[in-house]
């Protein structure tokens, strides 16, 4: 028996996928020239799978502050903040985020994954109860495994099931922490946060919302789903990331709870990782300011999302429950999902292939993420490619049949 024998089934499945064409899990870009354009194997592609919601990766001000920072402060911090200390930009970023969310405290982590790992493993411990939405991101599940709380799941976006779980815990000692996401990363659906907040108020406990995909996307000022639903006062912790709407990398948690800062000396994923390099912190501070200055980016993003979602639905594709910057197309089977991903790439459209078990309900998905930087013409070109390839693979009816079915 070799070390990798237990993973052979994955290797074989992966090889089968690669034999069908390009490798969807190891795409190599020759170049990325804007938030929405790149080249792969010499072919120009529209980037439709990058989570670059506001298109800020090429924001001139964010780039300028990043360049200035790397020149003045060097390429890296070479250690964690508890060992090597903080640069002024780390503190500035935490203060900016606290101000943006109107909360007392912020902790910045080196990745969004580590933010969940750190926060979930530290907030609750032995004898406490962590109650997760079943479709939670891998980082939430991994954070739950790293800690010592008892972990239970409730059915995805099902407040009634959450209520039952809390009712069963009645009279059981220990704290309760409920964890949901603003926008779920596979289907682009949002949590029923009003109902969940009401249940939390009735049954007690704390509520954490991961706004990784909804920060800068939802809410009057871009603070996410909690803002949109008007329940920010019920949300005790917000976790988020810099790697999506803010165009860099890193994670954070904000809260109004007293003693929050004690986590800096007990939270291992914070303590035992080098802190973010100055260039990343500076571009993030600037990107957050740009997000606040330009609400029109959010409006353009949602207009683009609706254009793509409505276009795909009209063509006959099965999509998520509502227009959101994540538009997932449910594919009938894995073979056609892989074939369609390859054919779309050949037609100049890059998006994400998501296969079970990473997807809800064991359904293969073509996952797109829209950006404010997409032009309407780009969205229309994507829709043309979907129409052509979808009909070729019998995922949707051919255009003529559609026309006659309508007429």
């Amino acid at each position: 028996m070799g070390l990798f024998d237990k993973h052979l089934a994955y290797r074989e499945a992966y090889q089968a996928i690669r034999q069908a064409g390009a490798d969807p899990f190891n795409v190599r870009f020759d170049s990325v020239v804007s938030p929405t354009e790149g080249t792969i194997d010499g072919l120009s592609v529209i980037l439709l799978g990058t989570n670059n919601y506001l298109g800020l990766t090429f924001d001139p001000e964010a780039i300028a502050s990043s360049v200035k920072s790397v020149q003045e402060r060097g390429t890296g911090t070479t250690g964690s903040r508890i060992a090597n200390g903080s640069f002024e930009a780390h503190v500035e970023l935490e203060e900016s985020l606290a101000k943006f969310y109107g909360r007392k405290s912020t902790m910045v982590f080196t990745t969004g994954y580590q933010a969940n790992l750190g926060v979930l493993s530290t907030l609750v411990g032995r004898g406490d109860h962590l109650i997760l939405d079943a479709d939670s991101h891998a980082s939430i599940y991994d954070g739950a495994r790293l800690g010592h709380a008892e972990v239970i799941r409730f059915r995805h976006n099902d407040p009634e099931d959450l209520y039952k779980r809390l009712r069963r815990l009645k009279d059981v000692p220990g704290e309760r922490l409920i964890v949901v996401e603003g926008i779920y990363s596979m289907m682009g659906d949002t949590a029923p946060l009003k109902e969940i907040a009401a249940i939390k108020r009735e049954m007690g406990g704390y509520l954490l919302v991961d706004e990784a995909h909804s920060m800068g996307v939802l809410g009057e000022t871009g603070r996410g789903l909690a803002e949109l639903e008007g329940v920010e006062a019920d949300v005790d912790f917000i976790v988020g990331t810099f790697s999506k709407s803010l165009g860099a990398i890193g994670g954070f948690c904000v809260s109004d709870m007293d003693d929050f800062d004690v986590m800096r000396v007990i939270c291992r994923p914070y303590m035992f990782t080098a802190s973010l390099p100055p260039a990343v912190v500076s571009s993030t501070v600037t990107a957050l300011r740009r997000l606040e200055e330009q609400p029109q980016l959010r409006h353009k993003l949602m207009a683009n999302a609706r254009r793509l979602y409505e276009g795909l639905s009209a063509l006959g594709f099965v999509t998520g429950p509502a227009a959101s910057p994540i538009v997932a197309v449910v594919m009938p089977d894995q073979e056609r999902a892989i074939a369609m991903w390859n054919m779309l790439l050949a037609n100049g459209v890059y998006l994400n292939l998501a296969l079970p078990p990473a997807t809800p309900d064991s359904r293969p998905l073509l996952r797109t993420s829209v950006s404010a930087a997409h032009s309407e013409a780009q969205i229309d070109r994507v829709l043309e490619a979907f129409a052509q390839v979808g009909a070729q693979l019998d995922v949707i009816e051919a255009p003529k049949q559609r026309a006659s079915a309508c007429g």
Partner: protein
Amino acid sequence: MGAALGMDVVTDLTLHEIGLAASRVLGRAVEVTDDTHIGRDLAVDSLALMNIMLELEGHFDISIPLDRLASVETGGDLSNLVTDLRNRA
């Protein structure tokens, strides 16, 4: 004697419910016995196993903590776990 018989009946009923839950999730009829190896014999991946748990949790009005699942390999293991959690409730 009577108590032992009663326990057997409970176990059988629990196994029957596990079979029903697995059939619903997998979309095919399966039978689960004490010795059924859930991963191997039922060809259940981690996601389907989680969904079977959700079905069982709803049916028996229990919550199955994730760490308790680590030790579950067979139908018998799962049946014992469900029974244990029902008694705790």
